[in-house]
């Protein structure tokens, strides 16, 4: 089920909301959140629910194990075994086909014959996100950062929470544990208005801005081979805006829905196109993933400790794995490596970047990010090389007839991304005035009209 679907807005959400607030106890609300999470998830394919239930049970059992023992060896096993299970599931469903295809391709190049069967496994939506939820839970329990919950329903509600189930943000248990334990005493009234305001903000980002850009971007990039240099840059700038508003919009909606149910979901985007260097970009883009990668991969690998070369290795490894997390395709691996190289380059030259004016640093960072999105968007490497060649080697070609309207929307979108307040800045005082609610009502109305007109596209991050 999509947040931007009529069934979600007019059936699932009202029913879930009303029953949730009619229930009185913490346990009842945990059970209801768990059930609704599975209904929300199973709407795509009920079989996927079994996989999520299995992962949930494995991680919950490990958590109970941590409560029961202080023996370091047993705790080590309780850490390794469930994380291995999670990674195996993720590896099988997401990477098995990619791995076998790559081995076959490599063997072809070397003139060997392998013929490994290529598995075309259906990728369960959101598996990358809920797997990270359970892995961070187990790792935090092992480190003693959290006390594992004894309640299966509380844990079930955490893993299957519909607002952040399929496309994040990646909420760590410690970030939401307090709210989950206090659901019975949450303030419904304040949460409703503020949550609706966040939801409307997210709808504006996703349905009005991102989907308007998608209308052009998809068509233009489908005929990328005939585009001129100017056309290719415009298409990629449009995609730059689309990707940001699509994912940021989803995150704002997730925050709003969480607030409506008394749960605070952390900020996931902090106007990343304002970043003045690659490091700052990653502190502003998909913050929940960046911090998870930092805390559970980069730091355990050694982080900044040791020699400079060691730190660069850790940075590159983290970004490569981060790239691969986004999708089983070499384009994502290269995208990760590209950002790893940017971060290393920035670290190496950071002493000198102080000489640049801030506006120039921001412009350079933005252009570098746009170039990186080529790998993120391309279906395969030939498409990526073709786009890059067109962007950097002036070429004649077509500029479709709708270039003017596309250009205007792209400029407006990028200006909004750069200068307009993001959802957390807009709601920084956590106050909801009548004017804001009026604006929220208008945005929700327009968004529903666009959704009913079938112009809303699926969220880009669902595929990850």
């Amino acid at each position, binding site marked *: 089920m999509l947040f931007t679907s009529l069934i979600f807005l007019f059936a699932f959400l009202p029913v879930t909301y009303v029953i949730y607030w009619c229930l009185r106890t913490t346990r009842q609300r945990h059970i209801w959140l768990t059930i609704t999470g599975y209904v929300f998830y199973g709407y795509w394919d009920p079989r996927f629910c079994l996989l999520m239930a299995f992962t949930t049970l494995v991680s919950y059992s490990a958590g109970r194990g941590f409560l029961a023992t202080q023996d370091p060896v047993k705790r080590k096993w309780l850490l390794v075994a469930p994380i291995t299970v999670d990674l195996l599931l993720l590896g099988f469903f997401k990477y098995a086909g990619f791995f076998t295809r790559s081995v076959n391709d490599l063997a072809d190049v070397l003139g060997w014959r392998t013929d490994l069967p290529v598995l075309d496994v259906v990728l369960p939506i959101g598996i990358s996100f809920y797997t990270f939820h359970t892995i961070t839970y187990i790792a935090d329990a092992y480190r003693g950062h959290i006390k594992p919950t004894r309640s299966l329903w509380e844990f079930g509600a955490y893993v299957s929470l519909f607002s952040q189930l399929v496309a994040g943000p990646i909420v760590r248990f410690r970030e939401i544990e307090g709210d989950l334990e206090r659901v019975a005493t949450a303030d419904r009234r304040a949460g409703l*208005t503020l949550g609706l305001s966040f939801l409307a903000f997210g709808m504006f980002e996703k349905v009005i801005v991102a989907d308007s850009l998608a209308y052009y971007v998809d068509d233009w990039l489908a005929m990328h081979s005939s585009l001129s240099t100017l056309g290719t840059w415009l298409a990629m700038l449009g995609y730059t805006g689309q990707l940001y508003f699509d994912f940021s919009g989803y995150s704002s909606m997730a925050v709003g829905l969480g607030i409506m149910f008394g749960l605070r979901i952390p900020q996931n985007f902090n106007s990343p196109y304002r970043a003045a260097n690659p490091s700052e970009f990653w502190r502003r883009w998909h913050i929940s993933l960046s911090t998870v990668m930092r805390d559970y991969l980069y730091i355990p690998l050694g982080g900044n400790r040791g020699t400079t070369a060691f730190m660069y290795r850790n940075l590159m490894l983290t970004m490569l794995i981060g790239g691969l997390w986004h999708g089983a395709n070499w384009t994502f691996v290269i995208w990760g490596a590209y950002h790893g190289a940017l971060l290393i380059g920035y670290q190496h030259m950071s002493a000198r970047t102080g000489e640049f004016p801030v506006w120039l640093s921001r412009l350079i960072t933005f252009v570098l990010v746009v170039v990186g999105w080529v790998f993120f968007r391309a279906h395969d490497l030939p498409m990526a090389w073709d786009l890059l060649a067109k962007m950097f080697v002036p070429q004649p070609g077509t500029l479709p007839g709708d270039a003017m309207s596309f250009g205007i929307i792209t400029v407006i979108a990028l200006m909004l991304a750069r200068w307009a307040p993001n959802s957390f800045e807009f709601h920084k005082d956590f106050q909801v005035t009548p004017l804001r609610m009026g604006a929220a*009502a208008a945005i929700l*109305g327009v968004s529903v*009209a*666009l959704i*009913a*007109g079938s112009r809303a596209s699926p969220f880009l991050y669902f595929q990850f």
Partner: protein
Amino acid sequence: MNETSDPKRPRGRSTLIALVGWGCFALVAAISCEVGARLDDWFFDDIPMLDNPTYESLFVVDDGGLKFGRPGARWKKVVMNNLGMRGADVGAGRTPGCARWMFLGASETFGDPAIAAAEFPARVRAFAPVGRCIETLNTAYAGLPPRALLHYYEAGMAHYAPEVVFIYPSTHFYLASEVSARRPEDMQSRKPKPRPPATGIVAWLERLRFYERLRDSAEIPVPIQKRRLTREIDSATIGKPANWSFSTVPAERLDFMADDMAELVRLIRASGAEPVLITHAVRVANPPREEDRGDLFSMRVYVPRASEEVIAAFEYAAAERTRQLARTLNVRLIDVAGLLNGRRDRFVDLVHFSPAGHDDVAHLILDTMDASAGSHAVH
């Protein structure tokens, strides 16, 4: 709207204020739904904000009751060009150096209204080899019966001086309950089922574009759809004598089809253009497979005299008859049925092509026309 309760304010008054606040919220949202729908239509589809176009706005009707596309008309995602046809604007006269190919047909040829330039006439133009200019005129619209094509071509389309005219008739029209020797009313567009005019709030609602969008996007569950179809078929067949239903392919209906096509071929030749016949393709196999039953069952609403088996058999027989006709009349033939019949991945329902299906048809047309160039005189 801030609902933090004020301890000094009486409870009843707070509730009233909250209710008024939420009422205003709902009102603003509702107005915005309509404004949003109109803005969206205006920005992306060029439909004027204050107009209320209907499907019928796409057409002008001549004295004989036949519909012709209205130049520049727009309704939902459907756009008519400057000549009242599907596709990009073209000049009324042939562009020097370009071939002008015209396509006659119904909804199968018109293509999915929501997907521009994916229908096979547009794809023919797109797939034409570099340096070869082909102007395609897609004159089809939904519900245009094959018989009406005679008058449609003679009274309207012939004026656009096509070089080649492709005929892709919706053959299932010949399985309708009442088809006999040609009558004047057969020359008219198929009329939609009469519906009592809406009154009161329903009439008002029907003027709202948002309401129209909601209605269009509502997904009726399959069991309800099936029940509705069953009811319609039952009401059409109940009380009819046993011999009313077709137990086999009705030969006289195939004859009617052949006669009409032969007459259309004659008209096209008389106008100085070359007619080309296209065999009508369907998603189902003959005899039908289990997975074909749903499509055939849905079609029975339009042709209740035919069973699912007869519908499939008729379509295959009609394709064969078209091949014979092409040989007899010495007309070029595009055998789409031979290529796509039974290919479920090339259709979205019984008769309408998927984008990949449209591409296949376009390639077949270009290949066949190239392969047979020279064997037929092109006028």
